[in-house]
């Protein structure tokens, strides 16, 4: 029964990983950019929610109504100020630029908020510890279930938007061939701005989930980026549902590892990630495989 419980908890944990990975996967799918500032942006979202909560004294759930538009605005600025410009420089420049943004954000947040860890656990009442007992061995955390349902809803909503709406078609067309999209009347620049805004709203939801289910501090972004990256690589790029599967595999791996030995929790997740990464690097698919092919096509810059 303990294994069933651990796998079930791993699936629920996978919902959080899918949530944190969705924005990274979406941005990569549209712009072929690995956003190394992804984790730091999620932490920024959590701090934004904290500030809103502190100033207005409202629930974090209500605060999302203010934080998400703010994150969309961050996405617009991020796209126009960083991604759009750095994309002109080839494949490696966006990596360096987003890494720079990550360092900048971490240190600005540290300067503003200090090193103390924060959490929304005390702001969401019994949801932070409430659970449903399935039987004597299995309990399901209400918050984990809510986060998993949110991940399902977000990914389902994105799937519908991309396949059923004109904006979704425009985003997909631009991702496939920006020049042909322009010849079809699409402004690729505006589409990319819209996509970045949507990605940052996803990051915002992930940041709120981070603050509710655990604690965060200014330098917490690195770990979130790693989880997101691992989920994207395991699930494969180009598929939002693949991101969910990747998150679930990562969550199960961590929980199964922790059951064998508590010290193996993180390592077992990384091992599964590395195994999938090696397989993908050898095969045709995968985010890094795609990047590797692009780098190979780039002529070496003169030194």
């Amino acid at each position, binding site marked *: 029964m303990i294994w069933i419980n651990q796998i079930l908890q791993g699936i629920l944990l996978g919902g959080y990983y899918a949530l944190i990975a969705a924005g990274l996967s979406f941005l990569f799918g549209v712009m072929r950019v690995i956003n190394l500032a992804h984790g730091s942006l999620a932490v920024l979202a959590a701090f934004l929610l904290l500030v809103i909560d502190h100033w207005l004294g409202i629930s974090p759930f209500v605060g999302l109504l203010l934080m998400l538009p703010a994150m969309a605005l961050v996405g617009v600025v991020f796209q126009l100020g960083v991604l759009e410009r750095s994309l002109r420089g080839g494949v490696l420049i966006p990596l360096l630029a987003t890494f720079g943004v990550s360092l900048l954000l971490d240190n600005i947040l540290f300067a503003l908020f200090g090193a103390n860890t924060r959490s929304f656990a005390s702001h969401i009442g019994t949801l932070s510890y409430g659970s449903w007992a399935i039987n004597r061995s299995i309990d399901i955390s209400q918050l984990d279930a809510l986060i998993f349902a949110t991940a399902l809803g977000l990914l389902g909503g994105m799937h519908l938007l991309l396949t059923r709406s004109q904006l979704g078609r425009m985003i997909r067309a631009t991702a496939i061939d920006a020049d*042909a999209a322009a*010849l079809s009347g*699409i402004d690729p620049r505006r589409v990319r701005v819209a996509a970045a805004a949507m990605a940052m709203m996803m990051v915002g939801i992930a940041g709120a989930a981070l603050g509710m289910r655990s604690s965060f501090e200014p330098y917490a972004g690195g770990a979130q980026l790693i989880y997101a990256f691992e989920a994207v690589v395991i699930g494969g790029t180009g598929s939002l549902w693949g991101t969910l599967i990747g998150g679930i595999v990562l969550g199960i791996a961590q929980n199964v590892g922790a059951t064998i030995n508590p010290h193996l929790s993180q390592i077992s997740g990384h091992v599964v990630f590395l195994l999938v990464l090696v397989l993908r690097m050898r095969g045709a698919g995968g985010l890094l495989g795609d990047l590797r092919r692009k780098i190979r096509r780039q002529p070496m810059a003169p030194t």
Partner: protein
Amino acid sequence: MSLLEVAHLTAGHGLLVACQNIAFSLEAGEVLALVGANGAGKTTLLRCLAGAHRPSQGQIQFAGADITSLAAHRRTAQGIALVPEGRRLFPDMTVLENLLVARAAKRSGDWSLATVLDALPQLRPILTRRAGQISGGQQQATAIGRALMTNPRLLLLDEVSLGLSPVAVEGVYAVLPRLIEAGIAIILVEQDLRRAMATADRLICMLEGQIVLQGPAADLTREAVTAAYFGLNRIAA
């Protein structure tokens, strides 16, 4: 006032000059055939007109407005649609999605999904199939349909028969009379001289990036066009 006026247009790829000092005009509803050997600069010229390639010199006026520095999507919104060489469809999207995506141009007019499917009935049975999985002729029809969905006043057709079977070419060309009847001006890049001269009102022949012959298609003999096409006049001179 002509629908399109091109003056002193020069464009290239790096150090290579693809077309040089090009000047011509096109009236509304007119069909112009652009012929020339591979590398003559036809595709670069069409891409300059559509905004997909930036000319180094010259001016393009469309419906009286200077569009030389206008982005491709804005030209589409003004009524210029390019069916590019190689189709450039979105292969992971269905045929229907490829058509609907061109609604982004937001131009009102006679062309809607229903009228496009009336003009290109071969698309009806394959609407839900991915564009990357259909035949070359069906892909070309989809590319033309996508261009029509933008409600163009000027349609630029770049080598629409390239790589297609004779039957597929007939299927693609069958739609042209309806487009001409609808008053759409067309610039047609075509390697098949006979077909180009039969379809067009006027013909321009390019050689090594320059216009070497132009005139009403009815007034030009096939021999004269062939001589210009291969640069035989230059050799004789």
